[in-house]
């Protein structure tokens, strides 16, 4: 699927004008839904994601309960109209896999042992999809969990790095994802830089991988600041209202 299009010029400028280590624009709104325990609306480049958290509440059906801790059910779902060719409603294999790896990543930071038998349900709806929806969804989920007051060791955050035309860059855009050489989405716990989620497709030398991993971790840390600011803004504005 190579094309003649130049994804990055000699000066390191990318199609959308970004430099190699530059993130797309990110906008986060906290507490946007009435019914949810916590919620977050996030725009990341052309991605639009809505997350609602429910729980902790009794896990049903019962046989799914864990006697020692809460289970974390992330459900990543793409709206039918979020992609160029309409997607049939309901989970496909891709969204089931993403739901699984996001659930596992979130479970690591949530203090699940405080809520035996409970479930914490994290509903991630992709409303508009450009490249990087799993990172956008996980990042929004971190904010929504904080908004719901779920006790966590840290607010998880995600970002990807990749390789285009032989160069390692941060946060692939859509064409970069389609035509690039490799994509490395990760999620971390920003306090410790522990890696919660990691997937890689493509072709990287060991050196490129190390560079991409460093880029992605730096990206996560930058996004983490935006997360914290959004949460703080909401908290402060609430105080003002009171």
């Amino acid at each position, binding site marked *: 699927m190579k094309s003649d299009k130049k994804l990055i010029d000699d000066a390191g400028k990318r199609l959308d004008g970004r430099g190699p280590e530059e993130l797309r624009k990110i906008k986060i709104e906290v507490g946007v839904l009435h*019914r949810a325990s916590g919620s977050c609306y996030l725009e990341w480049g052309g991605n639009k994601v809505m997350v609602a958290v429910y729980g902790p509440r009794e896990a049903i059906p019962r046989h799914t309960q864990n006697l020692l801790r809460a289970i974390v059910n992330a459900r990543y779902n793409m709206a039918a109209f979020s992609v160029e060719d309409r997607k049939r409603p309901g989970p496909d294999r891709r969204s089931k896999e993403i739901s699984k790896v996001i659930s596992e990543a979130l479970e690591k930071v949530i203090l699940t042992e405080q809520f035996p038998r409970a479930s914490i349900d994290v509903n991630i709806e992709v409303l508009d999809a450009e490249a990087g929806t799993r990172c956008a969804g996980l990042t929004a989920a971190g904010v929504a969990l904080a908004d719901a007051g779920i006790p966590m060791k840290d607010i998880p955050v995600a970002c990807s790095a990749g390789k285009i035309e032989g160069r390692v860059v941060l946060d692939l855009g859509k064409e970069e994802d389609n035509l690039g050489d490799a994509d490395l989405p990760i999620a971390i716990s920003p306090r410790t830089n522990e890696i919660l989620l990691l997937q890689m497709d493509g072709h990287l030398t060991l050196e490129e991988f190390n560079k991409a991993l460093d880029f992605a971790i730096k990206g996560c840390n930058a996004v983490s600041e935006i997360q914290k600011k959004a949460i703080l803004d909401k908290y402060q504005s609430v105080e003002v209202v009171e």
Partner: protein
Amino acid sequence: MTIVPAIKRDYICKLAKQGKRVDGRKFDEFRKIEIETNVVSKAEGSARVKIGNTQVLTGIKMDVGEPYPDSPESGVLTTAAELIPLASPDFEAGPPQQDAIELARVVDRGVRESEVIELDKLCLEPGEKVWIVFVDIHILDYDGNLFDAASLASLAALITASVPASRFELGEDYPLPLNEPPISCTSVKFDDFVVIDPSLDEEEIADARLTVATDENGDIRAMQKGLNGSFTKEEIQKVIKASLDNGREIRKQLSEKTGK
């Protein structure tokens, strides 16, 4: 499930006897409506509608496909609604259940039977190729009265939709050909009180529900009664009147927002 609603019912009915509703509205008064269009970029048209805290997003996608054998010169309309668990602690993941199916079918009939979309203008090759219009209703926040929110979001999304002809190399994009849409207004009954645009609390104690779609001439274009209570003829007249009154206001707001 059975005790709390009893208390809630008593409280709401007590207020109703005094002519009041929990949120201070009159019996025939809608909550505040917000309409925002073109909210997602991948869709041919989209709109987010808020009625109070209830929030619905409809996206329109179009594709080229085969017509139904019994209407070879007509485009195809497909409406789907999902009560995704994002929108309420009570919604569960999985294939659409009866409530979601009724919702989608009522919105679908509102669009189809009133010929809101001029499906006969969406034929590309008779019997072979027509435009397929997918109306996908995404419930974001459920605080009562999904029928009207879903219907209004779908109309607003359709009104602002473009036929993506260029993507299919069929010339330039153009607006979806539409007729004047009827506006759907829903009332519920509890005890002997009938209120329009029920909040979630009111829906939870409601005995009967009636949705009435009316057009710009004051004619009735669709009705759907729900729940296991009944209406008298007089109550139905009352519901129709309130639907006509509110429908007029909502039509004005829709027209302003969409510029049509």
